[in-house]
């Protein structure tokens, strides 16, 4: 893990790449949250822009489809006055290493300053960060099952906005933890920020073996898992990543693990409901809950812009001096 940390933090101790939460110190996560707070108001101004990254070129390098993540990264870059290039690369599975390096060299030749990378293979963002020219920053926009650090930080930001003190919280992460890079990054973020109790809740087939080593407790029964929690993070059932019969059916999954108004009552009365999106109504979450007063799902989207602005400003500024 030391290697990853070194890769993300440069010789001046600044965040040069943002690839994974794992190994980053608490102070740095807090700095991201505090900076995001500073950027949050910009969306409400007449001119929704600050000139911080004027003249920088940021490439959204997406090897896997995405709407929310790509558009919020794009908006974040534009609100910092950067120029944005969106590349959606539908990659065939073979020859990827070679193609990827060729793509990188071409983008470097165009004098780009930052890559936001989404890839279906775990480790893709690390691979790119190791191979780019030293002046380029790489931000992981989700790699395989591995990590989605900006999503974890925007969730942490949303939690802090509603709950203030991480040190007293009980958080339940419910659903397909096995395939979820969001869950992995989220657990690292919440544990680093000092959340004392993180529960992962889901069927045995969708909870990775050994997850307890990350400092979480495992619950296969949703009623027990939701009891008295302050925050519920619902995960999307990632059918596109599933191979083999992990589940009987979507309807059966909803019956056993779907978040319904009745189940929400088991949590604390002021509990918030989060979901990284896109939501599958009637599969992991009931529409009444998704659209209800405790849902902060759309706030998460807005917060995503501020958090991504913070990460972009910090990584782009890491090479100053």
């Amino acid at each position, binding site marked *: 893990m030391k290697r990853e940390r070194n890769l993300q933090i440069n010789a001046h101790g600044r965040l040069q790449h943002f690839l994974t939460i794992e190994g980053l110190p608490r102070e740095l996560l807090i700095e991201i949250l505090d900076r995001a707070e500073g950027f949050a*108001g910009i969306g409400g101004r007449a001119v929704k*822009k600050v000139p911080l990254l004027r003249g920088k070129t940021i490439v959204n390098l997406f090897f896997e489809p995405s709407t929310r993540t790509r558009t919020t990264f794009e908006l974040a870059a534009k609100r910092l006055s950067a120029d944005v290039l969106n590349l959606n690369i539908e990659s065939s599975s073979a020859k990827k290493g070679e193609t990827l390096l060729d793509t990188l060299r071409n983008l470097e030749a165009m004098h780009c300053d930052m890559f936001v990378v989404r890839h279906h293979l775990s480790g893709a963002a690390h691979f790119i960060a190791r191979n780019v020219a030293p002046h380029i920053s790489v931000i992981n926009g989700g790699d395989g099952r591995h990590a989605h650090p900006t999503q974890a930080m925007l969730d942490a930001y949303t939690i802090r906005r509603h709950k203030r003190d991480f040190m007293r919280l009980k958080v339940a992460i419910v659903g397909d933890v096995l395939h979820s890079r969001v869950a992995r990054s989220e657990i690292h973020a919440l544990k680093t920020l000092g959340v004392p109790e993180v529960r992962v809740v889901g069927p045995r087939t969708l909870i990775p073996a050994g997850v307890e080593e990350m400092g979480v407790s495992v619950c296969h029964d949703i009623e027990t898992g939701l009891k008295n929690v302050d925050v519920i993070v619902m995960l999307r059932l990632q059918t596109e990543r599933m191979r083999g019969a992990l589940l009987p059916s979507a309807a059966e999954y909803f019956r056993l693990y779907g978040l319904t108004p009745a189940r929400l009552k088991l949590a604390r009365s002021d509990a918030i409901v989060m979901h990284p999106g896109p939501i599958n109504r009637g599969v992991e979450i009931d529409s009444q809950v998704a659209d209800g007063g405790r849902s902060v799902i759309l706030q998460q989207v807005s917060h995503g812009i501020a958090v991504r602005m913070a990460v972009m400003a910090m990584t782009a500024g890491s090479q*100053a001096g």
Partner: protein
Amino acid sequence: MKRDGTDIEGLDIRKLLSAMAAKLHAFLESRGRQATEIIGVRTGGVWIAEVLRRRLKIRGPLGALNIAYHRDDFGRVGVHPTVEPSDLPFTVTDRHILLVDDILYTGRTVRAALNEIFDYGRPASVTLAALVDRGGRELPIQADVTGVSLSLKSGEHVKLQGPDPLRLSLLKNPDSPTA
């Protein structure tokens, strides 16, 4: 009259602020800008602005600017340490604005503050007040009203400490002069 830096630590800031308030009152009245909104530049400018707001009996809330994202030295120093974000709890468009900073030096902070204010709207006018004008301008920016003008030796810098009590101190060869 310009003073040197030797005795600024003993300056009575309350007196300076009273004199500034009187000058500002006359200045704003002579230009028909009585109904102003007041904005301080974080952090020291906000302290000064709060005192001036009371003395000038400005009824509206105090605005505060964090110009970190409008600075011109991002390429050299990266993002500045986090301070509280900007907060302008009023409409800027068509309003007279009284912009307040603690120390006026190169003028780059004021340039950044003006740019940020215009991102909120188009004010009818902006009046600039600074507690200290320490010379050394690098941009064509002047305050309409100042508390005190200083002539400092090379390597000397002045810093406002506060908010209670407000006190000026003289720094010799600090690592990073501001304002």
